[in-house]
């Protein structure tokens, strides 16, 4: 499920689909967050409710956005680059709003 207030439904859907794909292909839980000081605010992604309890890896992708995952390093570098690119695009659009 998504946070639908600050981000477009298209952006939310892209991130949600990406998280589902990563879970399916690599067995890794990923969710996308907006970084606001100490607060990492959930945007979209695979839910922890669908997996077991874990210690979260919190990874800053940019100043504005990050990912929280259980096994981030198992996501191939190429996919991680795609995520970074998508989040950078979102950050640019966010700045313009």
């Amino acid at each position, binding site marked *: 499920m998504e946070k639908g*207030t600050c981000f477009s439904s298209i952006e939310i859907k892209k991130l949600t689909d990406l998280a589902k794909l990563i879970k399916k292909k690599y067995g890794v839980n990923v969710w996308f967050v*907006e*970084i606001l*000081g*100490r607060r990492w*605010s*959930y945007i979209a992604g695979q839910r922890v*409710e669908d997996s*077991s309890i874990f*210690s979260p890896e919190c990874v800053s992708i940019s100043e504005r956005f990050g990912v929280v995952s259980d096994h981030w390093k198992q996501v191939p570098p190429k996919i991680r680059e795609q995520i970074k690119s998508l989040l950078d695009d979102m950050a640019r659009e966010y700045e313009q709003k």
Partner: protein
Amino acid sequence: MSTQLVSSPSVIEWANNVIEKDEITRYLDAGKDFIDDEKIKKLLHQNKHPTPHKVRHIIEKSLCIERLEPEETATLLNVKDRELWDEMFQAAGEVKRRVYDNRIVTFAPLYCSNLCVNNCLYCGFRKENTLVKRRRLTLEEVRRETEALISSGHKRLIAVYGEHPLSDVNYITDTLRTIYETKVGNGEIRRVNVNAPPMSIEKLKILKEVGIGTFQVFQETYHHQTYKRVHPSSIKSNYRWRLYALHRAMEAGIDDVGIGALFGLYDWRFEVMGLLYHTMSLEDHFGVGPHTISFPRLEPAANTPFIQESKYKVSDEDFKKLIVVIRLSVPYTGMILTAREPAHIRKEVIPLGVTQTDASTRIGIGAYSVRYPKQEAEKQQFLLGDTRSLDEVIKELALAGYITSFCTAGYRCGRTGKCIMDMLKKGKERWFCKLNAVLTFREWLDDFASEETKEVGEMIIQKEIKEIKEKLPKIYPKFMEYYRRIENGERDLFF
């Protein structure tokens, strides 16, 4: 000085420009807000004399962690049978355990400013109360207050502000940054919640950027006529501007919000219904309801005769009932009990579903760093019932079988807004609560506890660890790794 602070042309002009009318009307339904006074009264009237079967059916629904419908809450509010109330009391405690486990989160309030343009009849800070000493903390004073709080072991604060141009969103964000930047040895404040006046969406976006925990605005009373009577002038006299404060917050991207009512202004049953309708409206609009519900009672305040004259003051027995019904009505939302209440009442009501409470509270502006031993009514919004230290409160909680938690993990790793609410509803978040309670309690015992409290605390910790080993065998090794690292001096490890 006080008169200039509230009556100068610039202050009046500021107050006249706060409300954005379109940021109310956009949420109305055919021109109406979501509190239908007559409908609430009708529901309370129609659901009198409920059968035990009906009540037990509703209790079962709560135990399945499902939010109640207004008719169901009205039914519970009409229960007279003592035995049924006992069952509801038990159920409320069980609901809390299923959602939030055995922990009680603790925090402290930090009153930053008592300048206010409003004139709420029940409040010690109302603008016409000339006996109150008006102050706004400088950033240096905020830092000193924070240091004092950190030095007692607090990790979570709620920063409180009056409604005034000198404590506008820019002041609020400056103070929050100061709080977050302040460190004392191993200690720091890891989460700051905010209790502040309603703002426009534009201002709320500014607040959002700081990275706060929960944003709270209490409606005080949901009853339209009472609201008008007790808020006679200025910004706060606008019922709907306040009512939709948290809708605007959600729209600005602040997705952890707190609602509350001040019990004693009007019929407590009506206010419980109001809190439910508020929850429902947020859920309908944004897919997520309040992160917390607060339920303070009217307390004495300097030069505030309204409080003595109110005919709706809530008895201790009714106070317990309203807590239970709120717990059962919205099983997954946090519930905050404050030090307004005396120690013996707090001890009695914590088992009824409370999830958070404050300790070592001082509500005078600048009171923590000055460390004055007695309350001073002319410096405070009201008089506190419980002024015990954090150590004393934690010891009492431990003796009652609760572990005190300083957890701030959720909002630092994406468990926020709808995400955390869904996890709470599904019973998943409680395990994070358990793990993080132990880890943060270990920190506090090692850094701050008295010998006496440490002894009691160790027993509780061992009990919790045993349960973690039994119920979370897969995560147990990682948990024990974190636990040992904390015992060895590392800090701020979380799940």
